[in-house]
């Protein structure tokens, strides 16, 4: 089957600085792919290019067989921005229902998305009065509500307690089992182990595109955090010497 996302030679400049230096990567359909890398490495920029809101300098991004951001894809792709992008002066339910309507879904589906992120009891609360973790789950509900074929999530589990994080990851895998493709960014290495595949990015360059097991094997260590460090050192013999 064709890949859900194919990125070829992607170059992006932001604010006069090169942020992505020619990324080549693919994301298979029906999988959970983790996009891992330190803060400032270009994760959000890559995700923005995938959902088609990023101006790109060179390269192509093909999503579900169409150019990223093309109108037919807007029904098929769900996007969670890094900062919770929901209306603080609406309730959780009103937010979910609005985004459901944009995707042609009904109220029942909006309410189900709210329940799926564990906010059923807070559905009538204004988003502005929620805790940070609840607020980002409200935002997540709005990304899941249209049952998109591709879900792009920028750090969805930040600020969530361990139990909720485990629940959310279980939910991501349940979605993948039904054929949905998920691309999930994180800078927490212990989440990498939960992914089917990993894209490791540093300073705008891809340094690994493999399964967690293969990344461990390539680095020769069991711990993914340590494996990531070794891959960085292997890619850049003198990391301190490189101009930023």
């Amino acid at each position, binding site marked *: 089957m064709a890949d859900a996302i194919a990125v070829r030679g992607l170059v992006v*400049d*932001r*604010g006069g600085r090169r942020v992505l230096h020619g990324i080549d990567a693919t994301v298979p359909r029906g999988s959970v792919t983790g996009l891992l890398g330190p803060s400032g490495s270009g994760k959000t920029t890559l995700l*923005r290019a995938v*959902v*088609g*809101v*990023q*101006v790109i300098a060179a390269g192509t991004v093909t999503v579900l067989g169409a150019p990223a*951001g093309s*109108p037919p894809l*807007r*029904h098929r*792709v769900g*996007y969670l*921005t*890094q*900062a*919770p*992008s*929901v*209306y*603080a*002066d*609406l*309730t959780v339910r*009103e937010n979910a229902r*609005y*985004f459901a*309507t*944009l*995707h*042609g879904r009904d109220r029942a589906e909006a309410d189900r998305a709210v329940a799926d992120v564990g906010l059923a009891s807070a559905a009538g609360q*204004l988003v502005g009065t929620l805790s940070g973790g609840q607020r980002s789950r409200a935002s997540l509900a*709005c*990304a899941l509500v*249209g049952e998109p074929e591709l879900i792009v999530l920028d750090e969805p589990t930040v600020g969530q307690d361990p139990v909720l994080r485990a629940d959310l990851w279980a939910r991501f895998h349940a979605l993948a089992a039904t054929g949905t493709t998920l691309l999930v960014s994180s800078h927490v290495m212990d989440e990498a182990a939960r992914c089917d595949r990993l894209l490791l990015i540093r300073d705008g360059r891809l340094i690994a595109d493999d399964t967690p097991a293969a990344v461990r094997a390539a680095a020769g260590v069991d711990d993914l955090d340590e494996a990531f460090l070794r891959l960085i050192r292997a890619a850049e013999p003198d990391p301190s010497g490189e101009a930023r």
Partner: protein
Amino acid sequence: MNPRILAATVGRILRQLRHDRRTVALLVAVPTVLLTLVYYMYADQPAPPGQPSTFDRIALVMLGFFPFIIMFLVTSIAMLRERTTGTLERLLTTPLAKTDLLFGYGIAFGLAGAVQAGIASAVAYWVFGLQTAGSSALVIMIAALNAVLAVALGLLCSAFARTEFQAVQFMPVVVAPQLLLCGLFVPRDEMAGWLQAISDVLPLSYAVEALQEVGTHAEPTGTMWRDVAIVAAAAVLALVLAAATLRRRSG
């Protein structure tokens, strides 16, 4: 545009407004308070012979100003909030068309402006005895149209603002010259030629002229309908320009 998405967007914006009780209270109360000030300012001023009283002349034009000033500010900030909170970026990845969003704001805040104008007009006519030769319904219609124009200008200007500080600065830039040159302070035909020329290209001048027509003519005049059409066209033009400056992709 998609009617279902447009309707949902109008509903969403009005729901946001409804949850913000203090803003609703300010929208309703401020015009009444200001009209009260104007009423007592001119209470002892004699009316020029054969002309409407000073209060009638000024209050009528002010009924058009309130929705214009307030909806411009409200819209600039609301649209900037969409940008800074990331909701705009997310909306642009959904099936929502740019015109759904912009006309959604135009309709929602246009309705809010109409309600505001309705309440302010009720106070002006019933409490302060405002007299106009023409119908109060026309006054409210023109005031509501001013609200739509202000929303459209606010949406367009918010494209050029990156922060709230910048957005608020557009108010003196866009609103103040239109207030000064609209003909309330100095009749337009008594201004210097170059001021008249500027006044001629500012849409609020036509809204004020339309209100003055209602003030002095029992039946709607051709001039009034022409002015209404100009204001409506300016609003649509500003909305189209706002759509053209709204980019799905950004750096």
